[in-house]
């Protein structure tokens, strides 16, 4: 079955991203397909490559990257939400004349249409948030 997942909170502050991670891991183990993981609201902050959490804690952005590499997940940050919050890839950096970018390699920035498409294409949509 095809799942679409929406994550609405940033890393660490709320458990939403942790629960979504464990849910997706289990869904893949059960043979389901993850159509897309869409990060909205503060959820876009999961995509940073600049975090350095304490070594005895989980590294949330890296954990997403590793899961995406292993299972070819489509991790999408909403562009409007990302612009508000300072999540930037190379294209966005140029377009908005910024001097740095901070997105991790396996995430991409795209429009809200990607969320609607997930709603249309996936058999199931599930939201993790506050």
């Amino acid at each position, binding site marked *: 079955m095809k799942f679409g997942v*929406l994550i*609405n909170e940033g890393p660490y502050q709320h458990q939403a991203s942790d629960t979504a991670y464990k849910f997706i891991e289990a869904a893949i183990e059960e043979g389901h397909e993850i159509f897309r993981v869409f990060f*909205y*609201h503060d959820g876009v902050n999961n995509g940073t490559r600049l975090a350095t959490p304490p070594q005895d804690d989980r590294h949330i952005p890296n954990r997403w990257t590793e899961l995406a590499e292993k299972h070819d997940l489509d991790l999408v940050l909403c562009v*409007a*939400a990302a612009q508000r919050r300072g999540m930037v890839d190379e294209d966005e950096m140029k377009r908005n004349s910024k001097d740095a970018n901070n997105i991790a390699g396996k995430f991409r920035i795209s*429009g*809200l*249409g990607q*969320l*609607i*498409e997930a*709603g*249309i*294409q996936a058999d199931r*949509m599930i*939201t993790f*948030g506050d």
Partner: protein
Amino acid sequence: MEDQELESGIVKKFIYVNRKAPHGTIYAHEALEVVLIAAAFEQDVSLAFIDDGVYQLKKGQNTDGIATKNFTKTFGALEMYDVEKLYVEKESLEERGLSEDDLSVDVEVLASSDLKKLFNESEVFFNF
């Protein structure tokens, strides 16, 4: 390819369930941005306002004093986007001492027992 699939005519019943007050958090504001984008996808769209979500539609909101963006004006423009099915839960309105006259746009006020039927007919849920 995905565009072709969309054009191939899948139309689903989307429901946006809005349960949060405006301004104190961004959920209501960014939820409305989803609805506007979604309009271009020609899906069957309904908006439900439950709990504090009914406050999003309160008349006369003016955010000049808190220096944030007054996104609630956009509710008046939803019709232009062919988003016309707005449902407000009767229990939530009454609990807040509000009536339909207090709202800024045309809505259908439904008891939760009727809103439940709408839930049962819907296919894709977005919760904000």
